[in-house]
């Protein structure tokens, strides 16, 4: 069974934000919710690197661990999803998440931040695959159609990789060998407790 992962090759990422708008486009994500974002480190300095970040679908996901109501679940593909019907909008997952993935429709209305929203690895939610309810709450379910997340599919420089962890790790390793440098598979150690030797 595939173990789905994201990998951002920072030596390819040019902060073009295609992943961000592809996500908006595919799921009609409203203004203010950023399921995916690009962070630039050392902005404007030599050594600047940009990294596209969203939910990494962690092994032993912190969000799921701290959720007071157990709204998270992991699919057979190891994608971490959640149920908006169960979410109470407490915001704890955001405190625990190492990657700032959870998003909330409101900044804080007497503690109700609305139903948490996050990257689904284009795999929808608990509703029936491809149902209108699923689309309304979580957006498209590309995985069910045999497609991978659109952010990675549309990445301008093929920096953002999505898919089976072993395959994308292999792709990254080969790149590093070929070009002779690599700034690391960002977030992998935190999310999957493994790093790719480079």
């Amino acid at each position: 069974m595939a173990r789905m992962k994201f990998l951002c090759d920072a030596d390819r990422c040019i902060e073009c934000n295609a992943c961000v708008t592809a996500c908006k486009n595919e799921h009609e994500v409203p203004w203010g919710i950023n399921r995916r974002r690009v962070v630039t480190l050392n902005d404007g300095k030599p050594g600047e690197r940009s990294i596209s970040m969203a939910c990494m679908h962690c092994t032993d996901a912190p969000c799921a661990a701290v959720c007071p109501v157990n709204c998270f679940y992991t699919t057979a593909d190891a994608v971490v999803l959640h149920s908006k019907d169960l979410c109470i909008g407490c915001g704890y997952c955001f405190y625990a998440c190492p990657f700032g993935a959870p998003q909330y429709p409101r900044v804080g209305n007497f503690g109700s931040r609305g139903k948490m929203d996050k990257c689904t690895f284009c795999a929808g939610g608990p509703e029936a695959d491809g149902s209108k309810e699923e689309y309304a709450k979580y957006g498209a379910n590309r995985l069910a159609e045999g497609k991978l997340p659109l952010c990675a599919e549309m990445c301008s420089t093929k920096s953002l990789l999505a898919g089976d962890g072993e395959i994308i790790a292999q792709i990254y390793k080969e790149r590093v060998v070929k070009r002779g440098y690599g700034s690391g598979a960002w977030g992998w150690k935190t999310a999957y407790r493994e790093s790719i030797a480079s």
Partner: protein
Amino acid sequence: MRTRLAHIRFIIGALALAFVVAVAAPAGAQDRNPDGSVNPTASAVNEEQLLNALRGGAVSGRVTIPDQKAATLIQPEGQVWRDFHEVTLRWIGLIAIIGMLILLVGFYMWRGMVMIQSGRSGRVIVRFNGFERFIHWMTATCFIILAITGLNITFGRPLFASAFGSEAFTTWSQWAKYAHNYLSFPFTIGVVVIFLMWIAGNIPNRTDVEWVKQGGGMVDPSKHPPAYRFNAGQKMMYWIVVLGGTAMAITGYIMMFPFYVTDMAGMQFSQIVHGVVGVLFVAAMLAHIYIGSIGMEGAFEAMGTGTVDENWAKEHHPLWLEEQKKGPAAGGARPMATPAE
């Protein structure tokens, strides 16, 4: 446990520090060309080096969207907070609350109810007027609900989620959260009024030293240590309520309006304070409830009817009783504590 607490303390300053380090941790000198000009590829920031340099601090950069929280790429502190929430807090809560219960049961079995030694006199004296009692009970009711709904957030899922089923537990938790949020307002008002209302009688003084020396009379029932309106034990409870309540209110409102006044580290810290103070508060209140009910004969009336038996007063608050008998002109007595007749 020690290391964990150290971690928690570290969180406070971590974010600010992290930013500084992130900025200051670019390339080494070997990444430059022979003439000193830069080679941006070779000097690229490397994840492993950066994380090592930050020693657990957050990796931050620049984002163009206004949400500056998004500028944090990786925040390892989340793991520390998760550990606190899942492990540390549960242990503290368990020890404090269960420990207190065990203590109280043990004490009750050893000492039983503290009786009025000289028996009831039949004469009563007003101890708390209607307003005071209203405030007390309003605050107390809020506290109990806040405590239960609060404990639910930390202990509810492992205890009940599977038993109730996800949907039912969520529905309950959702309502619990609303109750927790909205009842915080009357609770906070209660704490503020309590602070103002009883501050005069709760300034620690020399009498308290004597009272503490005599163990508050709890150990040796024949002894009746001196006390004005509030004895040292009650003063302690007063300050636990005022300070603890303030801490709960401040951290609670920070969490209710997330990121308005603080950043991620501040939010995590607020939750930590709220959690720790919360469970300790619950433990303390258990003791308060005990002593105000089955722990002592004649105590409940003070908040129940508002009056106490004179003999009870003589044994537990002799100095206060003297004041009351001298009348309002005497120093230290509060007009509102004057008998109603």
